[in-house]
Every structure is written in structure tokens, then in C-alpha cells.
């Protein structure tokens, strides 16, 4: 396994949201604007990166039976750091993400990577894996948020994109829009895969 391969697998081939269907709660909840999506993606990437590195460092000393609680404590520590830093430096973002910042603890992407990768691989590989998966997660959030914000609000990153004649599809900003958009994206990627394997 090459480093570049480990890095790029999170983008598409093993994308945590579209391919592995992990971390869906924050994906649905914060994808109503691109700013929120990037903010959540960055926070989750930081936690994923740090927890992957620490867990990979301590992996030889962790008894197998209690590894999950130990992983959770490591993750929760970094989530607390992110929570406090975000509240201090980006209060507006912290407010609009709401309880989903502390809920990064139970984001299954992070615990999933700890269990499936960082607990078995070296520090360097775990770092690369965390970075790749984090970027893949951010990318997935951003692409859903672009569709929802553009069609549902007529804006991108808060800037109006269309003239005043544009009638926004309000439904996409509301909760149902999150489910429908994600469902369509999952279907689209399935369809692309079957086309590719058939060709």
C-alpha cells in the first residue's frame, strides 16, 4: 500500500459519506449552507487527524477488551478542544452548528477510522489516512451543501447568485431537503459505479 493511495482513497473510492454511509447525522444537519459544511468538515478533520495519530501511538499498550472506551476518551478530549477554540474564535459558526460540535464525539467516521485503521497501522499511515478521510468527509458535506444552498436559498457562501427573479426551492433548506439531496447523491454514485463496472 502506497502513501498516496492511502491518502486519496477517502476522496471517492472509500468516501466516508457516499461509499461507507458513515457520519450521516452531521452530514444531514449542517449541510444547509456551505459555510456550515466547511466549518463542520474542518472541525471533524482536526479531531480525526489528532485522534488517529494518538490512537496509533498508543495502539500497542491498549488492552483489546477496553479499547473502545479508550478511543472514545481520546476523541472526546479533542472534541472538547475544538468546542472551546471554536466558541472563542468563531462564535457565529459555533452557534449555528449548535449541539453538533460536541456530537462529533459520536461521529462514526472518527471511531470507525480509529477501530479499522489507526489501531492497526503506523503513525505516519494513520496521519495520512485521517487527513484523506477528513478531506473526503468535508468534500461530501460541501457538495451536498452547494446543492442545497444554491437551489434552496439562491446563494453560495452567503452571496446571492441569481437575480431577483429567482424563486428559491425552500424545501431544500428545510430538513426534508437534506434527506432528498443525500438520497439522490447516493443513487447517483451507485449509478456511476455500475456504469463504470459495466464498461
Amino acid at each position, binding site marked *: 500500500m502506497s502513501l498516496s493511495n492511502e491518502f486519496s482513497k477517502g476522496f471517492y473510492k472509500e468516501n466516508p459519506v457516499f461509499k461507507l454511509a458513515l457520519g450521516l447525522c452531521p452530514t*444531514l444537519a449542517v449541510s444547509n449552507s456551505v459555510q456550515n459544511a466547511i466549518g463542520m468538515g474542518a472541525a471533524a478533520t482536526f479531531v480525526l487527524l489528532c485522534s488517529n495519530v494518538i490512537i496509533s501511538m498508543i495502539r500497542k499498550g491498549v488492552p483489546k477488551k477496553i479499547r473502545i472506551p479508550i478511543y472514545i476518551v481520546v476523541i472526546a478530549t479533542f472534541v472538547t478542544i475544538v468546542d472551546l477554540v471554536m466558541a472563542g474564535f468563531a462564535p457565529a459558526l459555533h452557534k449555528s452548528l449548535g449541539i453538533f460540535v*460536541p456530537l462529533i*464525539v459520536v461521529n*462514526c467516521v472518527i471511531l470507525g477510522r480509529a477501530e479499522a485503521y489507526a489501531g492497526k497501522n503506523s503513525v505516519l499511515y494513520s496521519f495520512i489516512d485521517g487527513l484523506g478521510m477528513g478531506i473526503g468527509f468535508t468534500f461530501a458535506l460541501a457538495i451536498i451543501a452547494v446543492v442545497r444552498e444554491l437551489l434552496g436559498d439562491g446563494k453560495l457562501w452567503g452571496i446571492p447568485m441569481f437575480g431577483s427573479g429567482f424563486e428559491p426551492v425552500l*424545501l431544500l433548506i428545510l430538513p*426534508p431537503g437534506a434527506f432528498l439531496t443525500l438520497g439522490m447523491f*447516493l*443513487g447517483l454514485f451507485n*449509478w456511476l459505479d455500475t456504469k463504470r463496472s459495466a464498461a
Partner: protein
Amino acid sequence: MEFNELLIIAVSAIFINNFVLTRFLGICPYIGVSKNMDSAVGMGFAVIFVMTLASMVTWLINAFMLKPTTSNIFYIIFNAEAPPDLTYLKTIAFILVIASLVQFVEMVVQKVSPALYKSLGIFLPLITTNCAILGVALLNLDNDYNFIASIVHGLAAGVGFTLALVLMAGIREKLEMAPIPKALQGIPIAFLMAGLMSIAFLGFSGLKIQ
């Protein structure tokens, strides 16, 4: 707290701010366990049980260990000068409490009622990483609910989750027979159905309760 206020909390947690369809909490089990009715009902009851218990325990932890009041346990034990403010530890404290609570419940149920364990047992370990449980604990805190209101909110949130899960399981059992395009089979169609259900639940947001 009056009965009316508790009723409002309950109705709004079940219908208006349904945990799954409006707040997006607990999506993983919602999609993962809704393939057949029996496991959906089992999971639903396990979640109601753990959510109510978790609301109760996390409220007590917050009131007597984290909040800077004169009844803080650490203030009393260590004879500190001022009550310590430990609320920044809430994420770590709550997730540990929930994880150990789930383990404990699993052991108790196994000893006390093997029949119940057989039907709920496999769902209990999954609940630790169900974000709805930690979510309800954090929401209780954000909304400044008192002890009774927290328990009612936890119970109602669990009922709302179960309602959404059981409805979804019913729909998905019927979907087995339906001719669905190949690319949409499985998880994608489940999300589209969830979207339609969410539209239906959006109707409750017009509900005015006094």
C-alpha cells in the same frame, strides 16, 4: 413545573422537533435497523429505555458534579474556596457515563430477564454511538430543563425516535416488493422515503400549542 409545560415538551419532542426527521439525530440506526419490523421495535424500546435513563443520570451529573454551585460534590469533598466550574468537561463526562450506563444496563438485563435480553440484547451495544442519546443529554442542558422535565424530554425523544423507526420499517418491508431502479435500491431509496416522511412531519410545525 406544571403538567401543561411537560405536555408541551413531550408533544414537541415527539412530533414537532422529531429527533430523527427534524433534528437529524440517530440517523445511523434509523437507516441500519429499519429493514424489518421486529428489530425496529426492539431497537425502539431499547432506545426509549436508555434515553430516559441517560437523561436522568446526565442531569444529576451536571447538577452535582459539573455546575459551579455550593452543592457541587467536589466543592464539598475538597473544601474548596469557590465552587469549581467543570461544565467544559460535559462532553467527556456525558459520553463516558452513557457508555458505562449502556454496559451496565446490558449486564442487568442479562441477569434479571434473559427473555428481554434476547430481544433487546444485540441492540444495546449499538446504542452507545447513537448520537440521539448524547444529543438528548446536551439538549436538556441547553434548554435548562429541571429534573422532571429532563426525564419527560428523554422519554418523549425516545418515543419520537421509535415512531419514526417503526413507520420506516413498515414502509421498507413494503418496498421489498416494489420495482425500484437498481441504482436507488437499499440506502438511497431509504433516504428518499425519509425525505417524504420528513415533509409529512413538517406539517406538525404548524401546530400551535399553548
